[in-house]
């Protein structure tokens, strides 16, 4: 190309590479989350002698492992620029299905496969309606949120399924070496898989492209609708997996299971640094945010704080966490502007 604008040599920034990298690290949202997590753990230790106990700590991971799984797939959906509000209801429907199968003597492996299959089907239904009829995801999933749980209510009413094979209970209640719950290990493994998927594969890059500008992504040959269908189906599969673990851990299925989780899951993703309008976010960020919420509710539980106070605290934390970086950025800009007031100074 003819040089109309000869590219000028760019002046190097007057900072050492190390300093730059350190600053970049400090500016990362994940760093702030680590600090928040450490502070919460510190407060928990001060508040209760039972907190710093290996057994209790591992036990507490069961509070958030199932939600954490949902957060992972929700992260992909929100990055793509959509939202899935039906995940908790998929758990209810899937749990009901698994309970029904168990009641009729289906063996454990098939309970797991069946549960994940039903969840996947629910997710595919969401994705199919969204993509096929071009209805906004928030509308479709608000609809299926009532629909999926409604089916569960029709089947169960005020009854519950409580008969499961013993081997099935091992999934949600068993541990590795008496300490590490299988659930937590499954969660960590899935987090690693999602991290690689989102940050190190072509699919992940394409999701970010879609979330930042779906039109330009489409004009670049990215199959936007296929991806949207895919992430909703994946979200259903993860909800199916979470339902299997939940059912196994609790040993009972009621239609109100996991009620209200969808908002906690979205909140965790946002706390983890996922832009609610899509286009940015990281798996390490949302994993840290999952731990933050988990440790917070574990600590509050240890000092016997009632559930309603707990939700006030988590709500406040969420707003504070989102507002802080914005306020800090404003302050920094104001300082810079003042410094620029003395060009030579």
């Amino acid at each position: 190309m003819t040089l109309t604008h000869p590219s000028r040599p760019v002046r190097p920034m007057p900072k050492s590479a190390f300093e730059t990298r350190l600053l970049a690290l400090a500016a990362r949202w994940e760093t702030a989350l680590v600090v928040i997590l450490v502070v919460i753990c510190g407060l928990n230790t001060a508040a209760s002698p039972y907190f710093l106990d290996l057994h209790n700590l591992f036990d507490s991971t069961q509070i958030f492992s199932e939600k954490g799984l949902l957060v992972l797939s929700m992260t992909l959906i929100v990055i793509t620029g959509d939202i899935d509000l039906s995940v908790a209801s998929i758990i209810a429907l899937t749990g009901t299905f698994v309970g029904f199968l168990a009641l009729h003597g289906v063996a454990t492996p098939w309970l797991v496969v069946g549960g994940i299959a039903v969840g996947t089907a629910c997710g595919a239904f969401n994705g199919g309606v969204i993509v096929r009829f071009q209805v906004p995801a928030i509308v479709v999933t608000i609809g299926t949120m009532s629909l999926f749980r409604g089916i569960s209510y029709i089947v169960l009413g005020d009854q519950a399924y409580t008969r499961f094979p013993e081997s099935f209970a091992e999934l949600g209640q068993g541990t590795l070496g008496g300490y590490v719950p299988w659930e937590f290990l499954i969660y960590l493994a899935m987090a690693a898989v999602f991290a690689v998927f989102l940050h190190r594969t072509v699919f992940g890059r394409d999701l970010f492209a879609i979330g930042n500008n779906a039109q330009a992504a489409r004009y670049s040959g990215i199959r936007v609708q296929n991806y949207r269908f895919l992430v909703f189906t994946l979200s259903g599969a993860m909800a199916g997996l979470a339902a299997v673990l939940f059912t196994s851990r609790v040993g009972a299925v009621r239609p109100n299971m996991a009620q209200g989780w969808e908002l906690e899951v979205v909140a965790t993703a946002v706390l983890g640094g996922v832009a609610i309008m899509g286009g940015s976010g990281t798996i390490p960020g949302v994993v840290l945010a999952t731990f933050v919420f988990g440790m917070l509710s574990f600590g509050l539980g240890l000092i016997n704080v009632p559930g309603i106070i707990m939700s006030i605290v988590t709500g406040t934390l969420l707003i504070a966490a989102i507002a802080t970086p914005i306020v800090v950025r404003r302050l920094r800009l104001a300082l810079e502007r003042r410094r620029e007031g003395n060009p030579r100074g």
Partner: protein
Amino acid sequence: MTSQSETDRPILSLQGIKKHFGGVKALDGVDLDLYPGEVVALIGENGAGKSTAVKIMTGIYRPDAGRIFVAGEEVEVHDTRDAWRHGITAVHQETVMFEDLSVAENIFMGHLERRAGGFLDWKGMRRRAAEILRELESDIDADAAMNTLSVAQKHMVEIARALSHDSRVMILDEPTAALSQAEIHELYGIIRRWQAQGKAILYISHKFDEIFAIADRWTCFRDGAWVGQGRIADVTEDDLVRLMVGRSVAQLFPKPEVTIGEAVLEISGLGNAREFDGISFTLHKGEVLGFYGLVGAGRTEVMEAIFGLKPIDRGEMRMNGKPMPHGSPREVIDQGIVYVPEDRQHAGVILPMSIRDNLTLPLTRALAKNGVFLNDRAEQAVGNRFRERLSIKCASLDQKVSELSGGNQQKVVIGKWLATHPGVIILDEPTKGIDVGSKSAVHAFIAELVRDGLSVIMVSSELPELMGMSDRIIVMHQGHTVRELARADFDAETIVAAATGLGRLQEKRHA
């Protein structure tokens, strides 16, 4: 209009202003003097630093170095209020208005007038607003809601807002973009009255007819540097273009001598339900095929359909002699056809993503390990190669595309496609909204592409560009191809007649 007394001392004077953003210098020591009763035209390509200079004068940016003088006194302009205090106001290119508020409220927004007791003086402000509008000979009602006004009327309110400040210096940044010819003449009248009142006017425009009609003097920036200034009476259009781009207009269309090869893309009888029908043409190797038509003639629709973005109900497409099924953009790209859309910001680039990620977007899969895992090193290499080949002006490939100028963003879009080694590149209004210099860079680049054996389809509404670059021109009218002309038969009148539907009638009469 000539300036008489007091012209020895400028009202506003910029001296040696410098400003850089990150590693990119936007202004590198520019000077600018505005005298009372004079209109100065500030000229320069997009990215020359004109808007940055305006933002420094109005206090939106602070200069890194240099001095600002108002009536001979050195001042600092910290914010818009400071600028108002010094009598400097600007009418910006894009109007920012409060749509649901009234005209008077919009005019006084930011400097609402108060009466005793600290209450807002709405009566006074309404009266003043009506006065200013009358002064502008505008019939806009000061109580009307903004959202009931036309774009031109909104622009008039923007000018009224500037006038509400009692300014000595009026800056007009591309003021005629939304105005009709009659309204432009009204604006000239307003500017002449300001001159008579002894105001200094800075007029920023790309349109030479306006500059020659209204300006007394010119000042030219190029690449953030001051190039020169002088009296309009002493220069010609050609002189100004040369100053802006550093060379003459005569070189503008570098049509290369390329031997046209065999047919590459053959389209026959293409049609869909509403937008176009009976589209047939053949694109040959090394050819530039121009598409002309009025807005709404269906040119973009045809190109988007070929690229797989719109449905096709009838017709046949053949690529390199083989039938090409109508598929998704991905499949079309794999066939070697790529499309640079007209709407660069929304469909071309992904602004919040890095230059590298944009450049490799259609390629990530081809570069990836096992077709799945991202290959950073290969992507960086591709990024570097096309940054160099297209001379994309940036500090680093990690920079966001949103930080680039429009011309450089266009280079990113083109680079993204070239990286896929296409055989056919469709350019939809490739030079729309970019300045003279970048335009000729795009033209030179098209020439280079066909020399390399690519085939180009160029959709353009600019006839000189189309006639300068094309081997053949196809004219569309209301969704149909109505005329095809070989380069030897290019004639502006014939082409425009065909585009307006006249050519078709004539042909029928001849038949």
